[in-house]
């Protein structure tokens, strides 16, 4: 397949990154290709960090569609001019490496992957701090052996990524989609990981514009008990009540279902805050200090709600990276959509 063909197909399919940020794939590919024109070498990274609690779709894809994922990487390698791609990093969390390394190696023995086989290198995601270790610019630092921290953007990885060279980094599902697109088999579907208080937890595949309510119904997970959901991860996902499910699932499209009556309000907030406090890399002031202070506050019986939301607001407004900036998502939406509290700042 020619370069123009593949990029055209990706464009026509309207493919968006499945790692959470939903960035158009064709833009990223073109940007890396453009940067490679004036550079001798570049890198491809498969991001299989999947560090967000309550998201398990990449594991499922690797388990069931390994060949497609590798084929996606192969297509990227050839689109970006194979001899310019110095290395291809498979960046996996520890469990996935253990689970899939043998199978990946075996798969790579196939003739089809001959051109990328020798360029493949495994890289294990550090377990602490684990969340930021899935962020793309932090991954660059990690592979380069630097302190685990997000980088300032711009420059973006597609221009100056690993070792300052153009770097294409995509999520597992994205490479899978690319493989489908190349065969004209992509039909706009995506993976949903459904878990929590449901009858049939697991990974499902539906059209990406399907309303959340339908996703729950069709997967046999809709319940008559009063519930609310968190969409896009158990940490950073947005909280919606059961009347708000007429929209499609965004971000990583995982759906966590909470039983409203049996969920302890404070415990849930505490869970989120503890997660962020523990996972903050410590690079920027507001995330390092803010997540800590919020967690300290919620641990007490009484806390100053105005101050609490001043900090939450500043996390949204001034965080260095998406990690800190995502804490306000579950907090705000939970207060607004489920607790129906007016936020005073």
């Amino acid at each position, binding site marked *: 397949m020619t370069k123009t063909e593949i990029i055209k197909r990706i464009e026509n399919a309207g493919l968006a990154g499945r790692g959470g940020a939903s960035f158009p794939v064709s833009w990223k590919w073109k940007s890396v290709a453009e940067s490679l024109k004036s550079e001798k070498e570049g890198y491809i990274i498969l991001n299989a960090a999947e560090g967000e609690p309550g998201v398990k779709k990449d594991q499922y894809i690797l388990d069931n569609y390994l060949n497609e994922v590798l084929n996606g990487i192969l297509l990227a390698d050839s689109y970006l001019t194979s001899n310019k791609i110095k290395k291809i990093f498979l960046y996996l969390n520890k469990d996935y490496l253990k689970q899939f390394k043998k199978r990946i190696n075996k798969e790579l023995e196939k003739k089809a992957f001959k051109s990328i086989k020798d360029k493949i290198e495994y890289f294990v995601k550090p377990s*602490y*701090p684990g969340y930021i270790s899935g962020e793309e610019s932090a991954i660059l630092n990690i592979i380069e052996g630097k*302190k*685990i921290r997000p980088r*300032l953007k711009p420059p973006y990885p597609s221009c100056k990524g690993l070792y300052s060279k153009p770097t294409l980094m995509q999520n597992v599902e994205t490479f899978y989609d690319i493989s489908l697109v190349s065969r004209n088999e992509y039909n706009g579907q995506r993976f949903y990981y459904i878990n929590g208080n449901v009858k049939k937890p697991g990974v499902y595949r539906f059209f990406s514009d399907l309303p959340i309510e339908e996703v729950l119904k069709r997967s046999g997970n809709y319940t008559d008990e009063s519930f609310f959901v968190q969409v896009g991860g158990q940490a950073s996902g947005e909280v919606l009540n059961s009347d708000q499910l007429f929209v499609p699932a965004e971000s990583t499209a995982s759906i966590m279902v909470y039983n409203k009556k049996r969920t302890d309000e404070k415990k849930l907030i505490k869970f989120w805050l503890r997660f962020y*406090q*523990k*996972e*903050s*890399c*410590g*690079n*920027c*002031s*507001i995330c*390092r*200090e*803010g*997540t*800590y*202070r919020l967690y300290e506050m919620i641990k007490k019986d009484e806390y*100053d709600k105005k*101050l609490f939301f*001043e*900090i939450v*607001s*500043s996390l*949204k*407004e*001034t*965080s*260095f990276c998406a990690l800190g*900036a995502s804490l306000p998502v579950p907090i705000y939406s939970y207060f607004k959509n489920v607790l129906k509290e007016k936020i005073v*700042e």
Partner: protein
Amino acid sequence: MKPKQVKKIKVIVDGRLYYGVENETIFQLLKRKGFDIPALCHHPDLKVKANCRICVVEVSGCETLKTSCSTKIESGMEIYTSSDRVIKARKINIELLYASHVEKCVNCSYRFECDLLKFARQYRLKINRFSDRKKNRKTYKFGKAVEIDDTQCIDCNNCVEACQLQGISFLKSDNYGINTEIKPVSDKDKTCVYCGQCALHCPVAAAQEQDSAILVDKMLKDKKKIVVAQIAPAVRVALGENFGFKYGVNVEDRIYTALKKLGFDYVFDVNFGADITTMVEAEELVERLSDKKAVWPMMTSCCPAWVNFVEFYHPELINNLTTARSPHIHNAAAIKTYFAKKKEINPKDIVVVSIMPCTAKKQEKEREELKYKGRKLVDEVLTTREFSYLIKDNKIDFNNLSKSEGREYFNSGSGAGAIYGASGGVMESALRSVPYILNKKEKEEKEQEEKEKGKNSKKKNKNGNIVKAENAKLEGSLEFKSVRGMKGIKEAEVKIGKKKLKLAIVSGLKNIESLIPKLSKYHYVEVMACPGGCIGGGGQPIPTTDEIVEKRMKGLYGIDKKREKRRAHLNKEMMECYQSLKNSENKDKLLHTKYKKSKRIVVKTTKDIPPF
């Protein structure tokens, strides 16, 4: 060639039109236009890290606030610097940083300059809403020079980067989240050389000189001894910055008066000591030139951080270092012997306090080799910052001090002494005196020869004028422009007498490594640990940037130009003193020193004990 056209970019700030230049950040533009934007981690000479998150501004069309330090201006950008949104976020971020820092503000010696404290006031922070989460952190003490107090640290990483820029990399940011802390690396092949660049780049004095100000203040107040001060060349062109003077202004007169007001009994000028150092060093150079077995190149040794560097990282260069002591030690020797004798004071009753642009001098004064009759020559060292603190803490109205008091002794420092504070200055000073020493030596040798041959030299001195003119020629050049300036490595070649000398001048320790492999091609190498020399020293006012250092440098050359005597050997008072030190039976212990291979420093950790 046509000058490159600078593209102007229109932006609107708080409703008014401004023109920025391409590639400029919002912060740079706002600073240039005089906006008051708070910032802590920002330093013009360091990378933009954007981790303090307080320089945020609102940019139209952007979902969140933007850190002005890391956002470039774009044509048509609408920026709001003090909207409610901006103030609200800044306020909480400053409060959070302050909460991890506060505890010593009441008696901190940096409290008159501290930006964080200033912002806390400016933004009317509530300061008791959070507990001090870092109160049980450690303080790392590096010798007697510098310390890193993690209880005050705001994790901006400037110290780590400054240390890297020196090529030392002794510091690292360890761990993550709220457990992030700055600490020394465990690598046994690395050591701290006490240059203090960490302290100079710390916005909140968590990295700081080890405090002597309070001790000195106490000594001045309970007056059991004769406490004297001596000021280094580089202090006078920098101190004024803390009192609103322009960069590089010489505030020497006020310094004298302020020191007298603080209660110092006598005030001396280290420029005088620098002239002694020049003589010792120039004589050594002349000696090496006539010694076939001499080690080349000769390298300067007045920078104690550089000496520490050699002793640990490159002990093979120890014999290259001049044996000359550093100017404030020479000056102190003159005070405690020559001056004490003249004034009939028991040297044991004199306490010498050096006021230095340097943190490494705090450790240098402790060196065994520099003791005289078992006692330290310099008793205490204050940095320029500590001196500024003493002036402010004692409520001395520095700006309204004019008349210079207390210029009684050792005031005759030459222009050569003055430029010691700038990179290239030590070498230039020596070069100004080398021809004189060379001629003197030749003359003495000739006379000796002639005496031996029994000839008389009646022919000489027939025509006084000709001799004078010849002498002037023999004095050699006065200004050596090629050794001046801010470049990290400067190279020059000068002709002294019949000899061509190859010179190299290094400032900023990182630059020395690239020069070491090719050292053999030089005769004389000057090294200063801090960029730009002592004027960029670790004890200087904050901020110190390359741009500011350059202005301080101009200040020093200005002093030199105005001096009637610009060569060390023309300083009569000094020459008299020098001769007396030279004739002393303890000559070697007053003028020369030794070096030895050293081990990695032992870092002492304390659990945050206040100095007194």
